């Protein structure tokens, strides 16, 4: 109450404390991003001078670059599969881990484990296990009578195999779900028990609405990260076989760092950013309808 006016000294100290971040933000984020936005309207192969070419880079995405549009379609399929699979499975596992049984702590650690393994190592072990002739996956599925699957050798299957490796790495959304489910007040379930509601109905009518803010958070995080998914592609398939896994992010990566077409690659990256931003905005708008904040203050 005493400190209604902020002293000049405090303001100055405040800026001094956050100065490292302000500098870092200007030099490593804002400046470069602004520059790349300008470059996206230029022709620049990194060695020669910049020449302004207007919207040509952006037109190229839709017209002369066969890989970019095709990659965008593949990314759409990939994200469309990965988001519901990752969210659904991590929610299911988180629910399983909150049941009153032994061993959930160990299982939690095991399910999270892939998240501490690098994209390179994770990719390599999957690539090894995917081997059609000698891989352990085909050996294991032979026990239940499934014939060997050419996981990453067949262009019509490879993309779905990559989806599978993503489903393996759901530690982070699972942990967020777990914390949210544990945060649901016990007495909600107790009164539902008295009313005779079954476990399934309790999950649908109590758990799901109460953890909807976490569902929303995970939806945003997983969607953004899956749009950018790149490391497993580089390590496992390098975009092959026959371009089957040449996702948009891989097209962008090769244009930037293999062909050094920085102008075009910048345009590709800004286009992707615009799509992610638009989808996030739509999700945010829709969240009023289905995300339920149960804070007492009434958000």
């Amino acid at each position, binding site marked *: 109450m005493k400190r209604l006016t902020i002293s000049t000294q405090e303001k100055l100290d405040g800026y001094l*404390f956050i100065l490292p971040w302000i500098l870092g933000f200007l030099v490593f984020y804002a400046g470069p991003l602004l*520059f790349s936005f300008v470059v996206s309207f230029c022709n620049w192969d990194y060695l020669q001078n910049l020449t302004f070419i207007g919207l040509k880079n952006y037109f190229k995405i839709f017209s002369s670059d066969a890989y970019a549009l095709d990659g965008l379609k593949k990314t759409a399929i990939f994200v469309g599969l990965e988001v519901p699979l990752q969210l659904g499975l991590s929610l299911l596992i988180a629910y399983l881990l909150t049941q009153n*049984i032994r061993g959930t702590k160990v*299982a939690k650690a095991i399910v999270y484990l892939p998240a501490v*393994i*690098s994209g390179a190592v994770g990719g390599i*072990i999957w690539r090894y296990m995917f081997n059609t002739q000698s891989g352990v996956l085909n050996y294991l599925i032979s026990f239940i009578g499934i014939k060997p699957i050419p996981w990453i050798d067949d262009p019509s299957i490879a993309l779905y195999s990559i989806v599978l490796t993503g489903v393996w790495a759901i530690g*982070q959304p699972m942990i967020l779900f777990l914390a949210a489910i544990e945060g649901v007040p016990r007495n909600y379930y107790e009164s539902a028990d008295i009313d005779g509601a079954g476990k399934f109905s309790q999950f649908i009518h109590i758990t799901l609405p109460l953890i909807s803010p976490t569902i929303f958070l995970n939806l945003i995080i997983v969607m953004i990260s899956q749009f950018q998914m790149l490391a497993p592609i580089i390590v496992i398939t390098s975009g092959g076989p026959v371009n089957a896994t040449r996702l948009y992010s891989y097209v962008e990566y090769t244009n930037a760092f293999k062909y050094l077409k*920085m102008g075009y690659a910048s345009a590709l990256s*800004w286009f992707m950013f615009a799509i992610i931003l638009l989808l996030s905005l739509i999700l945010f708008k829709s969240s009023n309808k289905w995300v339920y904040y149960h804070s007492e203050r009434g958000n």
Partner: protein
Amino acid sequence: MIYNFTIKKSLNKIILYFMLILTSMVFLLPVYWIFVKAINGPVGIFAYPPDIWPKRFSIENFKTAFSTYHLMRNYANTGKILLFALSGATISSSIVGFGFARLRFPGRSLLFMIVIASILIPWDVKVIPQFMLFSKLGWINTYLPLVVPLWFGFPFYIFIFRQFIMQIPYELDESAIIDGCHRWSIFTHIILPLLKAPIITVMVLEFVRSWNDFLDPLIYLNSSLKYTLSLGIYYMITPYNMDWGAVMAAAAVAVLFPVLVFFFLQKYLLGGLSFDGLKG
């Protein structure tokens, strides 16, 4: 009636345990497979059907990985990066976090919103301009692009420190201000000693992030003398004459440290991710 009820209950339990064990096995399989194949020796790698249980034991794969593929050098390189990444991220983010949590200045909430928003900037949007910047500065094939930005506050860690510091009673600062302490000494003498939990959390998170970073080293490092662990393993894959045994040994060595750190410090890692381990 009661009899039926108990049967139904134990059947439920059996199904739950079955699902728990199945889930654990599926998620563990790839990691388990790295270790089995690593210790199986060069012969075991070609065994078909594959030995689900390790039947042979040999350190031959590890020897090859260390001698032919310079695993030790890559290890040391990753260690160097970690040293500067961990210290830089922790020091700078705690200072900035303190500023956002404790001092009032015009534009504070707007600037903090920008911090949060910058967590969400996609990697591929910022990597191209950052690459152009770092190559202009002549930082290609050095560790500087991997380390220097961390010394200017890492948005997610700033968030963690700010949240934690905001839960520390302000009376501590206030009485020190009355005693004539400067903000900087309040930070170093009063607040910093209380930050053990978020410091460990940030260090564990940054350890996992830096150790596993693959795309940035791939883009910025081009001499094999500079390769990090994950980059070195990636380059062990060649179209011809590939030694899967050595690759698995290197992978085993590369995952061992994060796995150990994770099992001993998982409280801090999982707490930091779910935001609730930081309370109190």
